[in-house]
Structure formats: structure tokens, C-alpha cells
């Protein structure tokens, strides 16, 4: 059987995530791929971006030469502040997460389990230096935690798994997985399909993932 589907590009994937961010949402975009989502927010939607280092109302990168290194995002890149934006200290920033004030966070992942366990901070390799940052606070704190990732590793193994083998970031915290091949919901009963790229069927996706996926 040959499958003739086309993967979503990184920008297409970012646009797919952005499509589901509702008007008025307060959103934290994780370091790396999730930051791309900001470039694809549909016209006419007012979305407030939170940065864990103490910014609400974060704007895009400044023009070259206008960088201000007191105004950076969690990835330590220079950003700007939109009108209405505010600054606050770290304890308040993480209170926004844990206290359930943040609508959505978008994170990358090494693995996600069918029931929404997340592994994204540590490969567990012996020589690896662990670093967690705000991942654990974000994962369990936001009202909805979304993951954005390629569905398969470079070796072709599914990153959606029955149980995570990498060290956990949080238990049952992921609601949705947006991938280059499909969008899925994680539920206590397992995976549920939201959408697929053209040319891929649910049955073919189940084969790639190796887990049942409810229609």
C-alpha cells in the first residue's frame, strides 16, 4: 500500500494551530516551533501573548537596531510590547499559569501519550544535562495545553505513544496534538481524530501511530 499524502510544512502547521486560537485568548507560545504560531494569527482576532519572564501583550520582534535587551521573550530573543501590555514579576507570571488564568499554551514535545501525558524536558540519556524551565508549570497550568510536533521521529517511530518512555513533564495534561500529518485530541479513553492531511486515511494514520484512533 502506498500512501500519497503531503506533510504540513512548519508554517502550515503553525497556521493550523493559529486557526483554533479564539478571539480574546491569552496564550503562551513555548520556545522553538510554537513561536511561529504568532506569525499566523488570523486577521481580526485579538490575542494576548504571555511570556513567562513577565510580559503580557508581547508583540513581534523589533526592527534591526531597535532591540532592547530588557525586553526579551522566554527564548531570550528581543521582542516588543503592544499598547495595553504590562510587566510583572516571576511569581505573578507563574500564578497566571497555575492559577488557571491562561487560556492556551502551545508546547513542543518528545512524546505524548494517548491519554495526554507529556514528555518534553529531558531525554533521560545519562550524559544529558537536564533543563526544565517553565515547561512543567505551563503544561499543567493552562486551561488548554496543546502540543505542536512532527508525528514521527526521523527514524519513523511515532511520538504519539501508549505510554511515554521519556521522563514526564505532566500527567494527562495535553488536550490536543497538532502534527504535520493530523490533529488529534487526547482523552481519558485515548486518541480521537480531529483532522488529517489530504491523501491520508484514519486507518493509515492508525498504522503509523500503532494505536487506535476514534473517528
Amino acid at each position, binding site marked *: 500500500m502506498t500512501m500519497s499524502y503531503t506533510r504540513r510544512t512548519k508554517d502550515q502547521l503553525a497556521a493550523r494551530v493559529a486557526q483554533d486560537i479564539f478571539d480574546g485568548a491569552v496564550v503562551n507560545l513555548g520556545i522553538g516551533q510554537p513561536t511561529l504560531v504568532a506569525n499566523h494569527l488570523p486577521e481580526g482576532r485579538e490575542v494576548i501573548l504571555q511570556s513567562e519572564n513577565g510580559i503580557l501583550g508581547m508583540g513581534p520582534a523589533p526592527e534591526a537596531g531597535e532591540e532592547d535587551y530588557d525586553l526579551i521573550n522566554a527564548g531570550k530573543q528581543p521582542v516588543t510590547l503592544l499598547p495595553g501590555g504590562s510587566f510583572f514579576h516571576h511569581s505573578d507570571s507563574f500564578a497566571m*499559569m497555575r492559577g488557571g488564568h491562561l487560556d492556551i499554551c502551545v508546547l513542543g514535545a518528545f512524546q505524548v501519550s494517548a491519554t495526554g501525558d507529556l514528555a518534553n524536558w529531558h531525554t533521560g540519556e545519562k550524559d544529558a544535562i537536564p533543563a526544565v524551565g517553565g515547561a*512543567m508549570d505551563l503544561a499543567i497550568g493552562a486551561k488548554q495545553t496543546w502540543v505542536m510536533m512532527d508525528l514521527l521521529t526521523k527514524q519513523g517511530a511515532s511520538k504519539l505513544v501508549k505510554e511515554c518512555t521519556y521522563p514526564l513533564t*505532566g500527567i494527562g495534561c495535553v488536550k490536543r496534538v497538532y502534527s504535520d500529518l493530523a490533529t488529534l485530541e487526547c482523552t481519558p479513553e485515548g486518541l480521537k481524530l480531529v483532522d488529517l492531511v489530504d491523501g491520508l486515511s484514519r486507518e493509515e494514520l492508525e498504522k503509523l501511530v500503532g494505536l487506535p484512533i476514534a473517528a
Partner: protein
Amino acid sequence: MINKIARSVADALAGIQDGATVLIGGFGTAGIPNELIEGLVEQGAKDLTVVNNNAGNGETGLAALLKAGRVRKIICSFPRQADSQVFDGLYRSGKLELELVPQGNLAERIRAAGAGIGAFFCPTGYGTQLAGNRETREIDGVQYVLEYPIHGDVALIKAERGDRWGNLVYRKAARNFGPVMAMASTKTIATVHDIAELGTLDPETIVTPGIFVHQVVRIERVATQAGGFKKAA
């Protein structure tokens, strides 16, 4: 008369003892009290426990303090960076103890110390390696892990403006850990770029009230940043 303005970095840092726990503010390029860290290298206290979000990068600042062999233990959330080679080497050779703490727990444990909280139950990290073997409890159907405060003997922080009572205001995202670290330490030393006449900081916008601050040192603005600053010639 109350006058918390220190004449120099060296004066402000006098009295930091071997074995002290030192809370150091900053996140990325914002809010790092570089002059105080360099001063601490000069000052010579050793066997320190350092609390910072990161574990130093490049060869200056916190990395220089580590390289000088003054630090026994570091408590941080994100030690690994592209240029954290000094930390990486010491950690891998077993010369530096690491306590890795999720970033929000780090901030809240510091805040708790300043607020007189004995311990608190927090959902972050439940069921993960970083919960260790600490006590857990289910409250209203949610699982929590018991977290203990982090007290500092000294906090080194960077603010924008301060007065002789120790009142501080910060600049943009350089605020980060400053306000909670100031609360949590026996002695808090803050650098500022401007000393304000008492009564000229707007009381409605003072972020750290002077009660949490013991020494204020004025430092030059390092002109390496564009935007709000002028580029160095």
C-alpha cells in the same frame, strides 16, 4: 537618618560569608546584576549555594563565579544553554551539585520564603522525576507536591531606579526574579542606574518597597543595548 545607598559594590558586598546562599536575579539578558556578581568574585566568599534561573553562560558573570570554584551547589530551572560550558564541565565532573526546579516552583518557593510560608502544596511536577520523594496530597481531586521555601542569606538584584529608603522600580522584563528575591533574603543588595531623591518615585508605582532592600548601589548603564539605550561607540 536612613541611608541604604552604598558607596561602592565592594562596600555593599562586605560581610558575605563562606557557605552563604546567594539569590541572583536575572533572566536571559534582562536583570542580571553583573557588577555585583563580578564583585562577589573579587570579594572571595566560597562554598556558596547560588539560586538563579540559569547556571551561567559564556565566561563572565555567574560563569566566572563558577569557574573560580566558589560555588558548591546551584539551584536553577534551566542550566543547559549553547554556551553554558563552565557549568557543563563542573557538573559532569561532579564538582557542582545541581538542584533542578521547575521555574514557577523556583519563583514561588522564593516568594514563600519572603512571605513566611512554611511550605505549600503545588501541582507542578506531580508524577515527575522532579517531585522527588516529597509528600504528595490530593486536594479537591487535584494532586499536589509539598514544596519548601528557598531562603537567601543574600540577594543580588538589578533594578532601574531606587532611593535611600531602598524603594525600587524596574525596567521592562528585567523585573523578573527581583521582587521575590528581595523579599526572601536576610540582606538584599540592588544595583540601580539612577538614585532618586526620596519622595520623587511615584508611590503608586514603586514595585519593591524599601523594607525588602538593605543596600542600593548606583552603577553605570552599560551601553551595549540598542532601543532604549544608545549603542556603544
